[in-house]
């Protein structure tokens, strides 16, 4: 039988085992399923493929996608085409890591536990926060969990969210809030940035937090976050920020402007885009909020002989102990993606991280200048950009993108579906992987469209 190569029992063994149990056939072991529930037919599934057939079939299917090697991509919006050192895949490909379960048995899971401890340390380094968890599903859910945690910590049920936060994230946040009976209120944007001047009035006694993103969805670094933090803290509310970890080697750490909960998407740290998943949510916070943090955490301790070791800790917050009183229901998360991020950061080191950050900044500035020098193309907003920027164009984004696609260029994200007043606007992303030649080709492609 095909498909049998993952099974181990032989016909003879099955017979011996049935005999030992004292039944005649394996079917008897299913007699506890009531007759009218037992499936009376064979599953209607395609026939099994051999390994060679499966590889061929799936290679063919994969070939129907344009991939980021066939194309030059200027797509961002939450998932990025960053360089991944070869060693990342080799470490995460060690089966001791990827075929393990959650490290419940610490003594035989020291490898992943220590790696996660290093990950938590590096996330704290990047954000300036005092504690980080061992990974979340993605940036969007990390943001939603951060907002939920802010409500629990302040015992308030309303959160302000800036309209410049990634619309995909806001969609997830809305769902998480509506189901828990928590309230959201949007803070408008002015010139592509959170209208901080509206905060004085908006931050009332029932506000738990403000949720912002920097660089925000338009690629702009939010300018007034220290002011925002001041207003919030004065009212005993919290600042929750979503950040791009690869901006942090250059850009002010969230702790420096007063953030209380810092979240973000860590895919750019050594993880492939994979059509939007698996991604890696990171989550960091101040010491005083540690016991309210959702998800898994690894802590350092000692063994019975005083030797240093690591365990999953603060588990009394968790679903398997606290059940309905847990701080979150997170069980499986993104541990292997956190491992990839750890290896990425270890390989790049502080200098490599800074270089990636600088190249993003400088190359996107070059692209911005080049594109906005074309007639009909303008920067949507003034301000400080990191690696993405919004451009106003002479035509509909779809039309421009299909034109670029003919030259194997993946253009930008159309902003109109998320911001109806930004018709003919596109979000372009330039990472360290884009070359001058590629940026010039994009510009030439856009110029040809005038």
């Amino acid at each position, binding site marked *: 039988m095909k498909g049998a190569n993952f099974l*181990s029992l032989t016909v003879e063994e099955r017979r011996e085992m049935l005999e030992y149990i004292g039944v005649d056939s394996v079917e008897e072991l299913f007699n506890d399923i009531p007759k009218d529930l037992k499936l009376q037919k*064979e599953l209607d599934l395609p026939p099994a493929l051999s390994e060679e057939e499966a590889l061929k079939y799936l290679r063919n299917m994969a070939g*129907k996608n344009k991939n980021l090697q066939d194309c030059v991509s200027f797509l961002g919006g939450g998932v990025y085409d960053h360089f991944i050192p070869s060693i990342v895949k080799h470490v995460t490909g060690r089966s001791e890591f990827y075929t393990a379960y959650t490290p419940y048995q610490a003594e035989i899971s020291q490898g992943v536990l220590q790696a996660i401890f290093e990950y938590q340390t590096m996330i704290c380094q990047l954000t300036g926060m005092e504690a980080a968890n061992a990974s979340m*599903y993605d940036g969007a859910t990390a943001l939603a969990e951060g907002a939920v945690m802010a409500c629990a910590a302040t015992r308030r049920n309303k959160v302000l969210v800036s309209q410049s936060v990634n619309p995909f994230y806001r*969609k997830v946040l809305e769902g998480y809030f509506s189901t828990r009976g928590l309230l959201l209120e949007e803070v408008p944007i002015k010139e592509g940035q959170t209208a901080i001047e509206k905060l004085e009035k908006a931050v009332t006694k029932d506000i738990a937090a403000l949720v912002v993103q920097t660089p925000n969805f338009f690629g702009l670094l939010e300018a007034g976050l220290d002011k925002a933090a001041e207003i919030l803290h004065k009212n005993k509310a919290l600042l929750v920020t979503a950040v791009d970890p690869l901006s942090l080697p250059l850009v002010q750490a969230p702790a420096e402007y007063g953030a209380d909960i810092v979240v973000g998407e860590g895919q750019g740290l050594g993880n492939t885009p994979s059509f939007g998943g698996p991604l890696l949510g990171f989550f960091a916070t101040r010491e005083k909020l540690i016991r309210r943090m959702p998800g898994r955490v690894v802590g350092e301790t000692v063994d019975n002989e005083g030797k240093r070791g690591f365990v999953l*800790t603060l588990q009394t917050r968790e679903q398997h102990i606290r059940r309905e009183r847990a701080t979150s229901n997170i*069980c499986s998360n993104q541990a292997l993606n956190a491992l990839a991020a750890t290896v990425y950061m270890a390989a790049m080191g*502080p200098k490599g991280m800074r270089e990636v950050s600088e190249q993003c900044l400088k190359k996107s500035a070059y692209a911005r200048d080049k594109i906005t020098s074309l007639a009909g193309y303008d920067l949507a907003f003034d301000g400080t950009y990191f690696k993405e920027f919004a451009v106003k164009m002479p035509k509909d984004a779809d039309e421009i993108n299909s034109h670029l696609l003919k030259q194997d260029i993946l253009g930008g994200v159309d902003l109109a579906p998320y911001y109806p007043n930004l018709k003919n606007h596109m979000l372009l992303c330039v990472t360290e992987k884009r070359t001058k030649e590629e940026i010039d080709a994009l510009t030439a492609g856009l110029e040809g469209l005038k």
Partner: protein
Amino acid sequence: MGRPGRKGYSLPQLDVPDRSVDELLPAKMQRKAPLDMPELSEGEVIRHYTELSTRNHGVDSGFYPLGSCTMKYNPKVNEEVAGMPGFALVHPLQDQSTIQGALELLYKTEKELKEVTGMDRLTFQPVAGAHGELTGLMVIQAYHRAKGEERTKVLVPDSAHGTNPATATMAGYDVVQIPSNEQGLVDVKALKEALDEKVAALMLTNPNTLGLFEEEILEISKAVHEVGGLLYYDGANLNAIMGYARPGDMGFDVVHLNLHKTFATPHGSGGPGSGPIGVKEKLTPFLPVPLVEKDGADYYLNYELPQSIGKVHGFYGNFGVVVKAYTYLRMMGKEGLKQASADAVLNANYLMERLKKTYYLPYDRVCKHEFVLSAREQKKKGAGAGDIAKALLDYGYHPPTVYFPLIVEDALMVEPTETEGKETLDGFASTMEEIAEAINKDPEKIKSAPHTTVVGRLNEVKAAREPRLRWKRDDLK
């Protein structure tokens, strides 16, 4: 570790005109404290993490009978496929004409899983079982709200996975616990007493966490539906019944699957997983957007679901994990899947039959893919379930799940899965017998286990009382 000046990366020379950071980034926005991270060469990084990997136990390292987790062998071909550039290097916001293969894969996986579960539609957006539970309850809530009902209660058996009550609370419900009867099944009488028009759903897994099939499931589902409640299926235990029975036929309205369990995608030391949910027709309008549809030969993402709960993940879920599950499905086919369940159940019953001679078996009846022993007799002699687990580490085994389900004293929950051979089961059983014998003779030896691992028994209390969650430079002093 490391030394300033060492370097484990290389990047191309900046090829655009160089402008200073100060010109592009106002001083106020620049980072003040430089990153304090080690500087390492590439070889040092590889050696460090390779060394760490040797301190870790995976399915490839040895037997992993962790109950309720279905730690079966993860075919290597799955990794090959998920790593293909056409799957791994695709951006989620590409034009739909450039992602037809990805959409086709989601569409076809959905089709196969609909058949396996007996459900009408699936979403792949949830990325873990617990995430699926949350999504499922959000869908149930939206369904009731659309009918103008605000239901407040979710029923959960006392043997349920901890995620079930936690999720129900996350979704804003009050949790009502339903006791198990002497056979280890849902106490139907108690269930009926708890039912009223405030019940949104009953969360159940079948086979349940004791590895037993809920034989009265049809009566249960009838009773819950009669008060307008819905049935939620926790798919953690689906591995036992593929090709034999389907949750959709049992009356379940929402099902989550753990692709990382049943469909052989690796668990990654705690993720990435994938927890798609399947629903019956009446719940389809409430699924998160987008759904994958087919129009003629073209696949597309459908966002036109006005009653949708919105989104539960930034994009479309853990696509890379779905790729692995689909590869597995295609290589197993219908016969392979059914054989997998048959062997999983046979392995569990065989091992149970052997071990019940040494350990107390609280529910002595045919099990499905897993069974729960109690170490209560051993505990009386001085070493309980936790000690037995640690002793197993010395023999190179990953222990069973311990102290769960909560309704069994000193529980040891064993799930061998279908990918293990008889020799492995026999070896494990002998070791378990040997440990029991050792407890009879000298429980202290077992209580101080493990003895051969890289670290001894770790102080979890200290870790929780004095949390050290990151390395600090002061540690060097």
